[in-house]
Every structure is written in structure tokens, then in C-alpha cells.
């Protein structure tokens, strides 16, 4: 299994623990991640507004880099997944592709010929690795760990999301947590938006939004929350104290990247997964797991 | 029947629980069995089912019943059916009565089952008592005249007349205006397919005009109608055209006529173009009019108005077709059935002064816009303002008069689609900016929602809100010389001022003014002013008067699709009625005992249906059994008790009341 790895800006920057954890998990599961040296930001919906044609061309460039390697793209971010997949879909239209390729040509870049698929790690784990193999690799089952499944919004708006889940009522993270031996906690707000994009304008609303989601997860019995999107992580983890203050309640819900959760179950050392970089401490919740012996393969 | 020898059967229906969940049907059955002369008492889950009726018939045959009470739902539902079953089983059907224990007991007293049961027993006892006093009635029939009159030659009347003619009936199609075609002939295009209206209508006009079974009377109005069993006699006034059928259609008379000329003191507006163009005193409404026979409007003619000083039309006519001596002529038309297809007219928008209709030159109603858009219209199909320039912007206001308690509370059903059609045609023809102002968008027909989407994608503006006014008072430079529509955009929550060059009012559909006709046909109107149908849901083409049918917008606002469908259904109903050859006369009407009648005429004075008259020679009241509705008003005023309604005689009613009344009554 080889993929053109697209970590995205968050995992390449402020959430680099996501990058570390993903590489660890990939190595353990025998997934080869090929770095795309020239790949740029997916635009995150912002470049799509400041320079819409440019955003499409930049994503076409990223896809053409993957095409050169003969690989599909693997993402670890809901927003990257959405915007790259959307770009890939509109670039399947020959007219659009020709128009964008003219831009690439002008900039001295190779054209994109179409056909590259964009897949999120969640889909790759469930479909490409497969449930049996994944279960076989679990060396430290997440016994008794009540994990809230927080999908966020963008991952499920990806035009291909319905290939592995029902966007309106998803279950894939719950299935994954169960495979890892954990106790999946489902709650209504799991498909809600974390509010990330409104941070600059209305942080007050964003923290209320995330407080509501986290409170719901906690009330449903989750002792931690796993998310497939680092932007959600940035809001739910880094601004949790503000959310608690704004809503007048104690939250204290550690937020794990999906890759970190998988890494824990695969027996990877929590330090290597970068859990110590989080604002809300993760250690108290996973202590019990750490004490447990890792089952040798 | 002699007392004490009746064999009465009582049948109690559960109505699948509707009755039996409240009323104790076992108790009612046992109670009924104890009534005098009741020889059979039974209950069943559904008396209206095939098995229920079979049980009724078997019991009649086995026990030789000569009286039946069915305790079930309202007699409006199944009385006729049960009587039919009884008749098949050999019993006189008029010996069967219904006790309504569903609506009057189970429904009305849902939460008092015991009282409901007692009431059911009482109603059954009352009907048993009545049945004991009933006598068998003979059913009379009358032959039905084989002709049919269709009143109104718009698309509904034309379609109905064609179908009836094709079915072999002798049709008289009566149209009050000089041409057939109705409002549809005024239209430019029809939604949602944007077919040319005349291209679809004109062949039907020609078919009906040339149909061997259709006798066409144009410029003729029904003045009176007399009803007799199986026959209507219509008095039709043929208005004088002053042009004979020698007319060859050369148009020289119109060209020569001085009326409405630049210097003429007499000016007439074209009815056909709804006041948007002048017309001469002698004219053909429009080029495809049928018959192609010119009409002279005496009210606006110099010959008639100025002591015969003109007559130029007669001078120029090469066919010698002008005949100033014509007078209105009354024609009697005998038919067996009548189809009322009198159509609609647009609501008078000047009743809503804030929209400026009649005040501002460039405020039009929808039918006028049809004429402006039509290639046969006053502007040859160019949408132009009164000053002759094309509009740059047009506002279309929906629901003008419709859905407004102050004017017409009903939805006129076609205006949303017509407005969308105007929006499409105006954008296509002029490129003008078009705004639709609507309360709700109602696009409920085949292809209609799709048409709405199509128009929405044509850069037509939609503002959800009912405009408060149209004004020429400018409050900003861009409003100078424009008509500004003031409206709250309820979606944006803000008041808008939209300056436009032209305002189109999508006016309500009003029923055509046919009160006189409806009165002579004894037809009712529903509260909205349209002709009342027999039953809105299950019998929308018949009326309460047997033999009279209703088609098209006479019954309610309709688009062309629905009008055609209903006109076809009305024609089918009329054809079946005519084809039955004879009609059954309802025996449950008034009858006169000549021995008691004193010919005092009180009965004929109170009768609302003109069903009783006094024969001046025999000095006795005579009931027209087709007109009598059996209302009983005459029986109340009759001083001698000579007139009674069958099966509602005083003895029969008293028997019921005695059974219902508490037993111990003070003497």
C-alpha cells in the first residue's frame, strides 16, 4: 500500500504531532507514505475565495504530483480532504481541466490528466487496510476507553464520503474505535462544525459551539474525543479552556487525532505520538493503557 | 298495509368500529328485536360491503320483509345504495329508512358511550315507527329530450360541445359575444409548454364551427329557462348584428366606419383588447374570429344614434349584407341537458386603489398583457408602454384580489403560473428587468414547478412580499418618471422601493356575471360566487339540478389543462344522462290530494322552486315532480293538509316523534 501523503498545513505546522502519529501508524501497518515535495496548501476554502482559479490550479498541481508517482492522495484532515476531493471532482470535467492546465502550463508546471483519488486516512484504514488486518495489529486494546467520535463537518461534505459512510448519520469512527477495542461513544453533535473558520470574526460563537459539542460528548459518557480533522483539534483542544469559561462548566475532555488513537492501540509509545503537545492533558486518561503491557506481535 | 302485520328487519352496522367502539351494538340489536313488528334484528361489521348487502337481501327474501331500518352512517352516504339492494331483493325501496347512529350517536357522543347507546336505540325505535307507517311508492320516469345546450363557447364550452357532438348528441352551443373562443383566444402563449394559444385553440374552434351535430348561436343570450320532466326549454335572445350571413368578410365597412376616428365624437374601446385599442362601430373582434361575420354595435353607431344620418357601411358593402332593420329575436331551444360553461372575467383591479390601476397609464392587468404580447394584439406583439417605448423594467404583482379577505378569499390558481409566463415572455421579448412580487409561489401542475425553475434561472427577480402600493411619487432620482413598487421583502426583512416602467397586476379570476342565467336555471352559487357543483370532491361536474352540468371556470378558477379535463368529464356526465333515455323522478316529493285542495295558491307562493302551480280551470294545485325538492314548505302553509311530501306525512312524522318522545307525556 502506497499513497501520496498530503499532511496539510496543520499537520505540517501547529499540529505536527498528527504528522508524527500518522507516520508511526503507517509504518506499523505497512503503508508507504510518499511525500509530495512540491505540494502546497489545499486552500482551506480561503484561497478559493481570494483566488478561486488559483486555488483550483494549485490543487491540480498537487494532484498532478501524485499522478507522477502513480498514486492516490492520502489526507489526514477533513478540510484538506474536502477541498482536494472537490478539486479532483471538478477537474474530471475535461473543459475545466483544460482551462486549469493552461494556467499550470503558463506557470511552467506539468498538466494534470485526471483520475487521481483523494482519500482520508479514515477511509484507507477501514477500506484499504481492512478491518481484519487492523484488528490483527492491535497490540494494546483500548479497553474501557470511552471515545467520543467527533467527525466535524468538512470530512463528511467530501463528495466521496458516502463511499464509506452515511454523511447524515456516520458510523465509521465508531466502527474504528470498536476495532481498536475501545468503547465508542456516539452523540448527536458529532457531525457538527467546530467553528474553526469563524475564529477570526466571532471567537465568542466558536467557543460556545465547541463547548456545546464537548458537553454533549461528555454527557454521553465520553472520557475523550477523537477527531479526523486537525482544525477541529485546534478548536476543541486549544480553545477548550475558553469554551469551558464561556459556558460556565468544567469540560476537561482530551482531544485525540484519529492517528494518535490508532497509534495507541497499535502499541506505539504515547510520547512518539506527541500527546504531550496537547493543551488538555491526555495522560490522565490513557495512563491505564500505558501501564498495560503491549502484546508482542 | 294493515296494522300489526308488518315484517320489519333492523340491520345495525359497526362501521368497522366507528360505530361499535362507542355504541353498544349488541344492546341496540336486542332492543330493536323487541320492537313491535320487528321480525329480524342483526348487526354486521360493514353493512355497506358486498356481504352486508347480501345479508340484507337474504333476510328480505327469507323473512319476506316489507320494511327495513339500517342503523348506520348518514343517509347521504348509502341510502340510495341500500334502497337499490332492497329493490333487487323484491322489496319496495321506499320502505327502507336509515337511522343515523354514526354521526348522530358515535361521533357526536364519543365520550358518553352509554348515552350514545340509548340515543341509538331511540333513533332506531323512531325509524321503526316511521317504517310501520310507510307505504310503498311507485317510481315514475320521464323521457329525456335528446338535445343538449352548452352555454358559453370558451375553451370549456367548445371542448364539451365537440365531445357531445362526436358522441352523436344534438348540441346547441350558445355564446353571448360575436365570436367563439372565449378568454383563451386572447392569450399569447400557454404555460408551461409555451404553446401558441391560438395554434391549439383555433383548430377546435373550426371543428366546433363546422360540426354537423353542433348548432352554433353567437351573439345570443339565454334569457329564461323552463324545466319539465326530461326537458328544458331555453328562451334564447338572438341579438341583432345588423349584418346578415351574406357578409363576405371584406372589412370595407370597418375601414369606412367613422366611429373612433381621430375627429369622431363617438369613441369605443375594443372589448377584445380590453380597452387597449379603439374599435369601429362595425367590426370583427379579431382576425380568426368565428363566425367570420361582422357585427354592428348600435349603441355606438351614427346610423342609430344620429337619426339614420350615416349608413356608410351599407353603401360600401359589396355583398349588401348590412340590414339596419334587424331586431332582437327570441328563439326557443328545447334540450334534455344543459352544460354551463360561462367562464371567468378578470377581477376589477381598480377596486384596489393603491395599485394605481386606471390611474397610472402603465399599470395593466394580466389579460391586457396577454393582448400586448400577442401578435394579433394592439401593438402587434411588441410590449410597449403607453408612450410607445419598450419598458426597461417590469414589476409583476401576484395575488391581486386573490387570497385577500377584502376582495376574493380564494386562490385563483393560475396567476402564479401566468405571472411566470409573463416574466419569461417579457424578458425574452424586451430584455427588461422583471420582478415578481409574490406571497407564496404555487406551481402545482405537471411541468409547472419545472417551469418555475426555468424562469428562476432566467434572471427574473423574485421578491416575497405583497406590495403595499404603486406610486409615481419619486423619492430619489432613479424613481423620477417611474412607477415605484413599495414592498417589504419578507425574506430580507426590509422595505424595498423598486422603480419600474410597467406594472402588471395578476388579477383574480372572477366568475362571469351570469346571475340571471343561474336564477332561471335554478342553480346555486357557492360562497365564492362560482356555480355550485353537486359535490366538490366526487361529483364536480353535476349540479343539484338533474340534467344541468358545469364545466370550466364557471365552477371554479382553473387553468386550461384542468378546464379541458373537467369539460370532458362534464360532457361525459351529460352524455350518460342523455343516453339513459329516461329519468327517474324522485318520488319523495310533494303530492296533492285533490279532494282537500281549495286552490288557495299559498303553496305556489312559498315554493322556492316554482314546482307547484294552481290549475285555474280544475282549481287544484299541481306539482311538477322534477322541480320539487321535497322541502315541505308547502305542507306547512297548506290550510287543509291537501299537500304532503311522500314518506313525510304528518302521520309518519308523528309516529317517529312519538317513538322518540318520553313515554309519560302530560295529557
Amino acid at each position: 500500500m502506497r499513497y501520496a501523503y498530503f499532511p496539510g498545513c496543520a499537520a505540517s505546522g501547529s499540529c505536527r504531532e498528527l504528522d508524527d502519529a500518522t507516520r508511526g501508524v503507517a509504518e506499523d501497518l505497512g503503508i508507504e507514505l510518499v511525500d509530495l515535495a512540491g505540494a502546497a496548501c489545499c486552500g482551506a476554502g480561503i484561497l478559493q475565495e481570494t483566488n478561486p482559479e488559483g486555488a483550483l490550479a494549485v490543487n491540480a498541481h498537487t494532484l498532478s504530483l501524485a499522478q507522477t508517482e502513480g498514486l492516490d492522495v492520502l489526507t489526514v484532515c477533513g478540510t484538506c480532504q474536502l477541498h482536494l476531493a472537490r478539486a479532483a471532482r471538478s477537474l474530471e470535467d475535461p473543459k475545466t481541466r483544460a482551462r486549469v492546465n493552461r494556467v499550470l502550463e503558463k506557470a511552467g508546471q506539468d498538466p494534470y490528466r485526471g483520475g487521481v483519488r483523494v482519500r482520508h486516512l479514515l477511509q484507507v484504514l477501514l477500506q484499504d487496510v481492512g478491518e481484519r488486518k487492523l484488528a490483527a495489529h492491535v497490540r494494546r486494546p483500548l479497553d474501557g476507553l470511552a471515545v467520543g467520535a467527533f467527525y466535524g463537518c468538512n470530512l463528511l461534505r467530501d463528495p466521496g464520503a458516502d463511499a464509506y459512510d452515511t454523511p447524515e448519520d456516520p458510523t465509521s469512527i465508531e466502527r474504528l474505535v470498536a476495532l481498536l477495542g475501545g468503547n465508542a461513544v456516539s452523540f448527536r453533535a458529532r457531525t457538527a462544525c467546530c467553528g474553526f473558520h469563524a475564529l477570526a470574526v466571532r471567537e465568542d460563537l466558536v467557543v460556545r459551539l465547541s463547548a456545546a459539542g464537548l458537553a454533549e460528548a461528555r454527557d454521553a459518557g465520553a472520557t475523550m474525543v477523537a477527531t479526523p480533522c486537525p482544525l477541529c483539534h485546534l478548536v476543541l483542544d486549544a480553545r477548550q479552556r475558553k469554551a469551558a469559561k464561556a459556558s460556565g462548566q468544567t469540560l476537561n475532555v482530551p482531544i485525540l487525532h484519529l492517528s494518535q488513537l490508532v497509534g495507541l492501540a497499535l502499541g506505539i509509545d504515547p510520547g512518539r505520538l506527541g500527546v504531550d503537545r496537547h493543551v488538555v492533558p491526555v495522560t490522565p486518561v490513557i495512563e491505564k493503557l500505558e501501564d498495560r503491557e503491549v502484546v508482542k506481535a | 298495509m294493515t296494522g300489526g302485520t308488518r315484517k320489519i328487519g333492523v340491520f345495525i352496522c359497526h362501521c368497522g368500529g366507528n360505530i361499535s367502539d362507542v355504541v353498544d351494538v349488541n344492546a341496540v340489536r336486542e332492543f330493536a328485536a323487541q320492537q313491535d313488528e320487528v321480525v329480524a334484528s342483526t348487526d354486521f361489521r360493514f353493512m355497506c360491503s358486498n356481504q352486508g348487502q347480501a345479508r340484507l337481501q337474504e333476510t328480505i327474501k327469507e323473512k319476506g320483509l316489507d320494511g327495513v331500518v339500517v342503523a348506520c352512517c348518514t343517509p347521504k352516504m348509502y341510502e340510495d345504495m341500500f334502497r337499490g339492494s332492497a329493490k333487487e331483493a323484491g322489496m319496495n325501496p321506499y320502505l327502507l329508512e336509515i337511522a343515523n347512529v354514526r354521526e348522530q350517536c358515535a361521533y357526536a357522543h364519543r365520550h358518553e358511550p352509554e348515552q350514545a347507546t340509548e340515543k341509538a336505540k331511540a333513533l332506531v325505535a323512531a325509524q321503526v315507527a316511521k317504517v310501520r307507517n310507510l307505504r310503498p311508492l311507485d317510481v315514475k320516469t320521464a323521457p329525456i329530450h335528446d338535445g343538449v345546450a352548452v352555454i358559453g363557447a370558451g375553451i370549456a364550452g367548445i371542448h364539451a360541445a365537440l365531445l357531445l357532438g362526436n358522441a352523436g348528441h344534438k348540441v346547441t352551443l350558445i355564446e353571448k359575444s360575436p365570436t367563439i373562443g372565449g378568454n383563451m383566444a386572447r392569450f399569447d402563449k400557454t404555460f408551461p409548454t409555451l404553446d401558441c394559444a391560438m395554434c391549439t385553440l383555433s383548430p377546435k374552434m373550426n371543428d366546433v364551427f363546422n360540426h354537423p351535430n353542433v348548432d352554433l348561436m353567437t351573439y345570443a343570450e339565454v334569457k329564461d329557462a323552463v324545466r319539465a320532466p326530461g326537458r328544458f326549454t331555453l328562451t334564447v335572445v338572438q341579438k341583432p348584428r345588423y349584418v346578415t350571413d351574406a357578409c363576405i368578410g371584406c372589412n370595407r365597412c370597418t375601414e369606412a366606419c367613422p366611429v373612433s376616428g381621430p375627429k369622431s365624437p363617438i369613441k369605443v374601446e375594443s372589448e377584445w383588447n380590453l380597452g387597449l385599442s379603439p374599435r369601429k362601430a362595425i367590426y370583427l373582434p379579431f382576425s380568426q374570429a368565428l363566425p367570420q361575420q361582422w357585427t354592428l354595435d348600435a349603441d355606438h353607431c351614427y346610423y342609430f344614434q344620429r337619426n339614420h344620418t350615416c349608413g356608410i357601411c351599407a353603401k360600401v358593402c359589396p355583398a349588401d349584407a348590412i340590414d339596419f332593420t334587424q331586431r332582437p329575436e327570441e328563439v326557443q331551444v328545447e334540450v334534455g341537458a344543459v352544460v354551463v360553461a360561462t367562464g371567468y372575467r378578470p377581477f376589477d383591479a381598480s377596486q384596489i386603489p393603491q395599485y394605481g390601476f386606471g390611474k397610472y397609464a402603465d399599470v395593466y392587468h394580466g389579460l391586457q398583457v396577454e393582448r400586448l404580447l400577442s401578435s394579433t394584439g394592439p401593438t402587434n406583439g411588441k410590449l410597449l408602454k403607453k408612450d410607445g417605448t419598450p419598458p426597461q423594467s417590469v414589476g409583476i404583482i401576484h395575488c391581486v384580489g386573490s387570497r385577500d379577505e377584502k376582495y376574493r378569499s380564494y386562490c385563483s390558481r393560475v396567476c402564479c403560473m401566468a405571472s411566470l409566463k409573463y416574466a419569461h415572455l417579457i424578458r425574452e421579448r424586451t430584455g427588461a428587468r422583471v420582478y415578481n412580487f409574490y406571497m407564496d409561489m404555487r406551481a402545482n401542475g405537471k411541468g409547472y414547478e419545472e417551469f418555475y425553475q426555468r424562469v428562476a434561472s432566467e434572471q427574473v427577480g423574485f421578491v416575497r412580499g405583497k406590495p403595499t402600493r404603486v406610486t409615481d411619487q419619486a423619492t430619489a432620482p432613479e424613481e423620477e418618471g417611474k412607477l415605484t413598487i413599495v414592498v417589504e421583502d419578507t425574506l430580507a426583512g426590509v422595505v424595498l422601493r423598486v422603480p419600474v416602467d410597467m406594472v402588471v397586476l395578476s388579477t383574480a379570476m372572477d366568475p362571469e356575471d351570469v346571475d340571471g342565467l343561474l336564477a332561471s336555471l335554478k342553480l346555486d352559487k357557492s360562497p365564492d360566487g362560482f356555480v355550485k357543483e353537486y359535490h366538490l370532491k366526487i361529483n364536480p361536474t353535476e349540479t343539484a339540478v338533474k340534467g344541468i352540468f358545469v364545466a370550466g371556470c364557471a365552477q371554479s378558477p382553473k387553468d386550461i389543462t384542468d378546464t379541458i379535463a373537467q369539460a370532458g368529464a362534464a360532457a361525459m356526465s351529460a352524455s350518460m344522462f342523455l343516453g339513459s333515455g329516461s329519468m327517474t323522478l324522485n318520488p319523495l316529493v310533494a303530492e296533492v290530494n285533490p279532494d282537500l285542495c281549495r286552490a288557495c295558491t299559498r303553496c305556489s307562493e312559498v315554493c322556492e322552486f316554482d314546482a307547484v302551480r294552481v290549475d285555474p280551470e280544475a282549481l287544484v294545485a299541481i306539482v311538477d315532480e322534477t322541480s320539487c325538492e321535497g322541502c315541505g314548505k308547502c305542507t306547512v302553509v297548506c290550510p287543509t293538509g291537501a299537500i304532503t311530501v311522500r314518506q313525510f306525512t304528518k302521520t309518519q312524522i308523528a309516529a317517529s316523534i312519538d317513538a322518540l318522545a318520553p313515554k309519560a307525556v302530560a295529557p
Partner: protein
Amino acid sequence: MEPARVRPEVPPFWVEVASTPGGESIATCIPCEACSSPCPIGALDPGFSLPRIIGRVKAGRRQETLAAEDLWTCTRCYACAAGCPRHARPGEILGALRQLALRAGADGPGPRRARALGAQVRERGRIDLATRGKPSPRRARPAASSAAVRGILDAAEAS
């Protein structure tokens, strides 16, 4: 409140929106408000209403719409599109409006941030999403792609 003025002589604002990428579906929008209840921001802030923003566009209130802060309160979560009976994508219509706002030189925290992040992509090939926290060595240096990205973005803008 002063009534809004519609100028029929200028092309309607919604036509401009419909010809902006993402805004195409505005023509099919009917006032069903199916986009309103799934909106997480609308649920918290009664001042934010997608149908109202679209209504403003349809009423031709261009300046007011493009200057309004609520364009930037939208979290781009696209929950609004799920229930739309017309396949309209209200969230993307808002995206189109933000494009127009940026082009029209709108100012405020939203437009400023969008411009800053857009510039970051052009300069460094990626954006710095965290507004706080320790700068990572990786974030300090431009991505390997930055020159290529600059070329592509400039070529797109020129086309």
C-alpha cells in the same frame, strides 16, 4: 428604517453572484429556509440568517451585503446544503459573496484574515493556522513548493 432602494437599470446583484464561482445555484433558491435550521452559527446567533443574506442579494442590496460582517461569521461547514430541495449550495453562495467582498475591498477581521492567509499561501505555500503557540521550526521556513505556488497563483490571476 430607510427603505432599501432597488436599481433595476443596473444588472441585478444576484446575476453577478450567479456568475461567480460557487454562486451559480442562487438562481434556483426558493424561500424554503431548509438551510436555516442546520446552520450552527444561526442556532447561536439570531443575527445570522442564510436566507436573509440570500434575500438581501435577491433584493439587489449589493453594498450592504458585501460590507456585512455576517459573511465572515459563516464557518464554511456546508451543513446548509444537505437539506436543500433545489441542490442549491447556500454555503458556497456565501463563498461567492466573500469573493466579491474581497474584490470590492471589504475590510474587517474576516476579510483581513482571508487576505493574510491567501498571501501566506502565495508566499510560503502553506498557511499558519494556529494563531498562538510555539512557532515550530517547520513553520518558520517556506514550504518547498512556494515558488511553484506563487507562479501558479499569479498565472491564474492573470488568466
